[in-house]
């Protein structure tokens, strides 16, 4: 027995944890893991939006196909995070802010998953558009996509920082995406009036821009969640 203890004491020399453990370390750890998984999901969604846009401008059907395949991974990630949240709630019994935070994260992953679907839908339109010459430099699609990706990034930053001010800013920036969508619609309809040869491409562009507009709306939904989490107030940021 002495020999066992001698070898243990050898390890003790560098032992760090001499403090009494913090009461909710396990819950905090799980919250961080879940939050990190949500952020990774957000990065995938951002990338998907930008890749769909890049594929459009480069007429790259293969890249667009990658976006569509990549959506399966975003979907799986959402299922995984949702499961983790259910397990954490069942085993750690969070209340008050911890509970609201986890419920918020569950909703955020749902919105991110739908955004991933929308990016995938844009990519499907891109596949059809790729073999054709561009219609007026893709109208406003590239700008809408870039703004959408920036909004996703910004709203996740606001979530991490628990920043209601930043969250409200996201809602305001989404207004610009809405404006671009309506402008796209009007311009494309005009192009279709001018020349029936434009109809097919124009329709696909309108469809794609609609999905990009929805991405912005979903970022605003997340922003509303953040405002609620931080302030306890339910605000409609997209009236």
């Amino acid at each position, binding site marked *: 027995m002495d020999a066992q203890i001698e070898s243990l004491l050898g390890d003790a020399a560098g032992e760090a944890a001499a403090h009494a453990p913090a009461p909710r370390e396990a819950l905090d750890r799980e919250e961080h893991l879940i939050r990190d998984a949500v952020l990774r999901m957000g990065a995938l969604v951002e990338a998907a939006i930008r890749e769909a846009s890049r594929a459009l401008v480069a007429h790259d059907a293969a890249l667009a196909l990658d976006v569509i395949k990549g959506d399966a991974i975003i979907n799986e990630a959402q299922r995984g995070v949702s499961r983790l949240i259910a*397990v954490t709630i069942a085993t750690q019994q969070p209340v008050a802010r911890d509970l609201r935070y986890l419920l918020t994260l569950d909703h955020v992953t749902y919105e991110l998953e739908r955004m991933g679907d929308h990016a995938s839908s844009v990519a499907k339109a891109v596949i059809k558009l790729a073999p054709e010459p561009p219609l007026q430099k893709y109208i406003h699609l590239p700008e809408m996509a870039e703004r959408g990706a920036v909004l996703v990034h910004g709203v996740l930053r606001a979530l991490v920082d628990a920043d209601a001010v930043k969250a409200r800013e996201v809602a305001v920036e989404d207004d610009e995406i809405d404006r671009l969508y309506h402008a796209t619609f009007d311009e494309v309809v005009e192009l279709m009036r001018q020349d029936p040869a434009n109809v097919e491409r124009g329709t696909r562009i309108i469809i794609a821009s609609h999905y990009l507009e929805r991405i912005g709306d979903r970022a605003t939904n997340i922003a509303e969640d953040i405002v609620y989490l931080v302030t306890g107030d339910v605000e409609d940021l997209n009236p």
Partner: protein
Amino acid sequence: MNAAQAGSTLDAPVDGHTPPAQASAAAIPTIHVATDRGSDGAPSRPLGQTIVELRGVSCYYGSFRAVKDVSVTAAKHDVTALIGPSGCGKSTLLRTFNRMNDLVPSFRATGEILLDGQDLYSKSVDPVAVRRRVGMVFQKPNPFPKSIYDNVAFGPRVNGFKGNMDELVEHCLRKAALWDEVKDKLKQSGMALSGGQQQRLCIARTIAIEPEVILMDEPCSALDPRSTLQIEELMAELKKDYTIVIVTHNMQQAARASDVTVMMTMDTSDRAGYVVEQAETIQIFTNPKNQLTEDYVSGRFG
């Protein structure tokens, strides 16, 4: 909520060379919940080897059968929780693991009770030796009426420890997360500590004899909520070196702190306790197989 720093994920610029979505997807982590298992309950590490096993065990006080036909296992480096309503035999079962029931004259156990494959109740086994390998922490903290130092040193002294006692005492108090709070008052009585501290002292005392298994019989029921949660975090650390079996009537504690849960109840017809279900804790608290288990953990009976 912490205004936590965003991970590198948010700060990394997404440039024109970002690889397709698949590449970064592999980084979605499997959460390391208390059990170190995947979220659907399937183990993300191989199941630990069994260290304690009960096969067809029944416990009798005289002619009364208090526990009937129990077959459970506790795996090495797991926290295994025994839960169930009052009177279902959880503590009786726990005390068979270290032969504490021997101290009750009318007690008798049948079936096999194995520690590392060795039958603890065979005639050739010394019960005192068993209790060196299987330590116990009780519901009410019960430090010896001695100094903090002597509480920890007592067991090793009895066992003939010849090494550096000061180092051993410090090591055990550190492991029990008590050292910082008592290092300047080791000569003070152990009984002058707060409840949570006393319980940690009892844990340090148990560790000092180098057991393989630590039994805990409702170790937190006499403690305030904060001390309770501290002890639970301590258990998560301790299981790296020991195997822990805990009886608790606090289901939420079992949910937070254990890897595997054994659900017991009492059969009203013969008043004998029996095992309803043993499964990974995540499973028991998200989707148990047995309706009785579901009703109990939901607070609908018991």
